[in-house]
């Protein structure tokens, strides 16, 4: 598009661009300007005087660290589990909510499933620790009712990652379904009308109309989510980790927090963040191009 074309378009839809402006401003302030600070990954930070250029020193330290690859492995496993098991849930949820016809009940369901999103991970961790407690937790009470042995999920190496996935699901599934619900709302009712006249059942309408119409949104959200692939959930892990599970759920963010932030080694922490950022960009771009080639749909 030409320069003139862009301005004409902005002039024509100026109200929409005005609404977009705060979001652009937010990303410029909090996401673009901080890129300038990324140079710190190649420097030794000095509070007084000029920073010292050290090249790839911090990256070498990061990759030489005995814990780094364990931590990276944990991050990849947890993120993959979340993408595989959690990503489809909001989509399914939005499809189910869409089928609810009773207005007040639908609103009630939506409120209930959105609510956990507004709780902090400190509170959620407390709730889940109580819920999964071996002696009084609801989950073990149910297990015992069915003659199953008590399990201490929060200290079990085999279960803790699943606890992360399910607690993430409980907190975010409702909230994340909003975007899909919005996409469903804009599907033309005439499509459903035509399908009903043709004798399509509810399930068939869902399968042949709702889901295909939803696909482009799903693809975009999926690709954008991949950009945060190495963000396995600092707040969540930080509040749920303990000595028994540290080897299974210590992730890049918690590692960087301990070594970088708490020890004031900001250059080291920046190097780790840059590494994460680069991986995120590579994942977004490669997924976008693969998706474009296979389905014709991408982020842009």
């Amino acid at each position, binding site marked *: 598009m030409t320069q003139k074309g862009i301005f004409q378009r902005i002039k024509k839809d100026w109200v929409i661009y005005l609404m977009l402006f705060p979001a652009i401003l937010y990303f410029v302030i909090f996401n673009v300007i901080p*890129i300038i600070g990324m140079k710190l990954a190649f420097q030794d930070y000095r509070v007084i005087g000029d920073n010292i250029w050290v090249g790839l020193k911090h990256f070498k330290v990061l990759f030489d660290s005995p814990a780094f690859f364990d931590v990276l492995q944990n991050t990849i496993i947890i993120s993959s589990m979340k993408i595989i098991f959690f990503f489809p849930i909001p989509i399914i949820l939005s499809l189910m909510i869409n089928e609810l016809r009773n207005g007040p009940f639908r609103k009630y369901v939506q409120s209930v499933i959105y609510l956990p999103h507004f709780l902090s991970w400190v509170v959620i961790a407390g709730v889940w620790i109580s819920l999964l407690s071996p002696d009084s937790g609801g989950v073990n009470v149910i297990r015992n009712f069915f003659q199953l042995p008590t399990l201490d999920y929060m200290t079990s190496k085999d279960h803790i990652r699943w606890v992360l996935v399910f607690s993430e699901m409980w907190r975010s599934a409702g909230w994340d379904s909003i975007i899909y619900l919005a996409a469903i709302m804009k599907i033309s009712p005439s499509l459903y009308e035509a399908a009903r006249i043709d004798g399509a059942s509810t399930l068939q309408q869902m399968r042949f109309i709702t889901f295909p119409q939803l696909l482009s949104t799903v693809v975009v959200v999926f690709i954008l989510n991949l950009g945060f692939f190495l963000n396995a959930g600092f707040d969540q892990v930080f509040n749920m980790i303990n000595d*028994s599970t540290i080897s299974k759920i210590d992730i890049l963010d918690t590692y960087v927090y301990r*070594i970088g932030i708490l020890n004031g*080694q900001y250059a080291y922490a920046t190097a780790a963040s840059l590494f994460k950022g680069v991986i995120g960009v590579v994942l977004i771009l490669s997924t976008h191009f693969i998706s474009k080639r296979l389905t014709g749909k991408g982020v842009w």
Partner: protein
Amino acid sequence: MKKMLLLVLAFVMIFAAACSNDSDDASDATVDKDGVVTLKVVFKDEGPSNPVAVKYFANLEKALKEDKDLNVKFELVEMPQGNYAEKLNLLLMSGDIPDLIYFQGGDQQIANQDLLEDLTPYIEKSEYIKDIMLPHNEERIKNYPYLLWIKPLDSKTPVIRKDWFENAASSDALMVDPTVENYHTFFKEVVQNADGGKPSYAVTVAGDIAELDTIFKMAFGLNQTWLEQDGSYINSKVSEQEKAKLTFYNQLYEEGLLDPQYLTKQWDTKEEAFYDGDAAVITGTNGKVIDIYNGKMTQVNGADAELVVLPPAKGEYQGFIATDITKESRGLAISSQSKSKDVAFEVLDYLASPEGQVLDRLGFEGEHFNITDSGTELTEKYYNEWYSRFWEPEAFELEKPLVTPLLSEPAQNSRDLANEFYNPDNSFIIPEEFVSKWDAMENIYKDFSADVITGKRPVSEFDDYVKEWNEAGGAEITEYANETIK
């Protein structure tokens, strides 16, 4: 494709533009035309939004003027909520460096950049501070001269309700001879005596075994971080003594004496379990913290539930864990960039004087204490909320003696015990190049010890753990330790 190239080009340009030099500025303490020196102070929980802190520093300004003819104005820095060490580091790294800084970790990075003043010459020339330094303070300031924190030892001591303690027949034997065996017997009896299911278990700790170690570690022969063995040093965490200690902890866990959910306990849930009667024994920092525990426990469960302080277990050695003397873990520092270093230290010195101590230790007259004919009376408000912001030397004498002691009896007992069992450690500051390896080794230890205690791994795998620990950097750091420890 063009868009892609544009995107990459924009990124490169931003990055290149970013590679310009920054200018930094340090704090600039000022002297106004009336000769008033402004000192910028950053102190945990003592910001301008805290009315008690504002009043405290206003009183200090007045006292400095009256007693020392020192015109000082304190400018308190408001710190955001959250981890203090983290937020403070962000403040300092931004180049905003107050004159007087309270650290609670994260100070080494700042000291490494020569931003903290060496306090040794100031202490030598001081009027009061040099006389109130405690032995551990003297050792720490020799090793790391940037932080000062004249407070009693912060060892944690175990406590139990008096009624439960007296109800156990084995309590006398424990007090006379607190061996590991007698502790074990006592724990078992306390749980057997449970009334209405309380206590559920003998002891709980906040998330890891550090608090359990304060009771038992020395008894197993773990009196130092680095143990001497055949003429060289090994880390206590890979010693045979550690193996024996973990075996014992596992026994406590298996018998239900150690809280089965200790790994998920936090400090608040630990205390809750204690007041609710689920846990019979917890540990708390000697002195004021035990005072608070005692106050809350009697408030919830009546006067019979006053606390009894238990002694450290006795074995190869006896004592609470060895005291780290490499440096103060928290304390006050003066910025090397400050224009008023001498004045800042004069303030610290004044707080060590008899007049300064009254203000710092007792609070506000008419609110936290009253001077009457019978002496200095401490109010309920003092016991409930006052704590010394700066120094707490052992000697504290008043013109009019205290009618009631500064600490309750259990709290004073805990302090006496902590002082009696003072044992300096031979640990050293881990150099920056080893920090990530040390972190990895610590995590391997945490993982293995938690698994052994909770029965997920047999203690017979100790040699495998030692091998893993050494490979993660243990061997290298042990070599460094042998070169470093004198």
